[in-house]
């Protein structure tokens, strides 16, 4: 206990010293895990930007998506090591707010990356994809692409039953874009539109995507439009459809914009995908911490939103009229992972 106290005192001293002297600003990046290509690329973007600005970057990650304890320990380590700011992609958005507040009290800038905290103002700022908008774009694209949207048979492949915010926003955005009444916007599954065949879970991977799609086909083989939470789930769903000889007459839409996903758009596996920009997210976050360290200036949200929108692009090989879209080539240039 004594050692810890002494350590903390030492840290307080060193941060004070750092404030006085002109040391290189430093920043921590804490992601949900170190295996998801999304976070791998996010870390790459952060390291590149930090090197460019001559900053020191420390990178931490949960052992798996949902590993709250490791993230708390990482925040404590970052506070103790006296960095200027923390970029955090939180696993447990509500429970992490306590340690986040402690970090802010210690004078650090805390930016939530990709996933807003609950409440959103628990962090100084959020740099994220507008996931509802991402869903809305693919929903609207599907509406404009289908010949007979009034008789669509829709299957939805979500992440998991705990209904994390990101998954709910994409799902409800998709349904809104397709013109379906979503009921309670904070949860999926309460819609009563007869065009919806069912909501399944995919765990966001190919294995779950395949099983989920099989279950949906067992419920109703006439499905012709499939929403997927991300591209690995879409690839798994496509394998199931191919096994049932339905690969060519079912439209799959997705979200993410990873390189294998955009290749799947090019190959006709996925009709359209909403692309997000994790490298950009991390780079902007690092810049914001650098500015904060230099001038004390806090980042501003995007106009009309309560977070900084890092943008989303609709990538498709079959563009429709009246929507802004990226070609597959453009998508490939901007893709990650």
């Amino acid at each position, binding site marked *: 206990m004594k050692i810890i106290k002494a350590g903390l005192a030492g840290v307080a001293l060193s941060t004070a010293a750092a404030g006085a002297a002109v040391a290189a600003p430093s920043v921590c990046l804490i992601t949900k895990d170190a295996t*998801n290509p999304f976070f791998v690329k996010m870390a790459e973007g952060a390291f590149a930007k930090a090197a460019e600005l001559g900053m020191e970057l420390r990178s931490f990650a949960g052992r798996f998506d949902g590993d709250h304890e490791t993230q708390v320990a990482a925040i404590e380590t970052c506070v103790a090591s006296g960095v200027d700011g923390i970029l955090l992609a939180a696993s447990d958005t509500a429970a992490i707010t306590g340690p986040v507040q402690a970090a802010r009290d210690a004078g650090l800038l805390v930016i939530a990356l990709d996933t807003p905290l609950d409440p959103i103002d628990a962090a100084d700022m959020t740099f994220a994809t507008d996931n509802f908008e991402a869903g809305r774009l693919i929903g609207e694209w599907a509406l404009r692409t289908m010949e007979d949207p009034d008789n669509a048979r829709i299957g939805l492949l979500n992440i998991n*039953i705990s209904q994390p915010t990101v998954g709910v926003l994409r799902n409800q955005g998709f349904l809104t874009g397709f013109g379906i009444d979503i009921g309670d916007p904070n949860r999926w599954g309460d819609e009563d539109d007869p065009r919806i065949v069912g909501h399944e879970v995919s765990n966001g991977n*190919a294995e779950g995507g395949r099983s989920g799609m*099989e279950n949906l086909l067992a419920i109703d083989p006439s499905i012709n439009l499939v929403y997927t939470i991300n591209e690995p789930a879409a*690839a798994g769903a496509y*394998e199931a459809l191919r*096994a049932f000889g339905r690969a060519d007459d079912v439209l799959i839409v997705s979200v993410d914009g990873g390189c294998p996903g955009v290749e799947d758009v090019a190959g006709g596996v996925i009709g359209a995908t909403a692309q997000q920009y994790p490298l950009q997210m991390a780079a902007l976050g690092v810049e914001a911490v650098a500015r904060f360290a230099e001038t004390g200036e806090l980042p501003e949200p995007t106009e009309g939103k309560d977070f900084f929108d890092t943008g989303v692009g609709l990538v498709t090989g079959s563009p429709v009229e009246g929507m802004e879209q990226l070609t597959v080539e453009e998508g490939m240039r901007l893709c990650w992972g």
Partner: protein
Amino acid sequence: MTNAPQLPPGPDAIASFSGGPYTLKARVIHLVYTLPALVPLFVLLLAVAIFGVLLGERFLSPFALTLILQQVAIIGIIAMAQSLVILTAGIDLSVGAVMILSSVIMGKFSVHLGMPQELAVLCGLLCGLSCGLISGFLVAVVKLPPFIVTLGMWQIVLAANFLYSGSEVIRSQTIATEAPLLQFFGQTVSIGGANFTYGVMFMLGLVVVLSYALSQTAWGRHVYAVGDDPQAAELSGVNVKRTLISVYALAGLICAFAGWVLIGRIGSVSPQAGQFANIESITAVVIGGISLFGGRGSVAGALFGALIVGVFTLGLRLLGLDVQWTYLLIGLLIILAVTVDQRIRRASL
């Protein structure tokens, strides 16, 4: 095997219960003891019957029933590996990780290194075999507890997988053009609405081969003997070390095959798949009536265990129930299965 009724009546037999008046309860216990796969088989048939009544044609169609087989193929195969290890009173937590690393090696070697696909598959299988050999050596020779050894191997193999693959997925279409052999087990034979993938056939074939090997060969007898009482086995001339190493090595090889089957099922090579395979395989094994204390149970039981989970999963989804109900019921089944196992052990002492 300490069960008195099971001993063959030798010339010096002091007491023999054969021919004695069995009560119905004793008969049932005896039957379940000698054929431990009966309980899971009964539960499986009961579950199929109940869902059949509730859902009718939608569930009792060749399409839906063979779909369940496809959905449990991976876990079914992994459960075979897990069964072998658990029969020796061990446990293997690294099964899922070994499966994924093997599949990643097959994919990376053939697509990224440009190796001939047959050679890449062979390398993947060798990877599984080697992982199993290492675990087996540590358990049998260094005498470390299997739980600890495979806990360590799980972390090591999974980390190696992520380090080597960089979490990058190899797309289905790329594999189809460059190394179609990797998707071999995904091919389907359709017989009147029923769809059998090669992966499903492999799983069923594996059950038959392992059942035969465990019940009809000396090696199989040794596996049971080592699991029941290693000291007694050693004293009766069983080479315990060699038996244990062979079991872990074979389990590793089976996991590698599961990795190959997995590529067939999901089309792509995904370093992030199969994260729960260890828990799911242990679930199947336990529901399948294989004793965690070793020496009792059959691989057919493990297959039934995996199928029970598959039947509940699809049945409850077709009923439109929340997925949580599946987990809740599976949890109940696990506890029920272990209760049955304990009662039988007590009755047999």
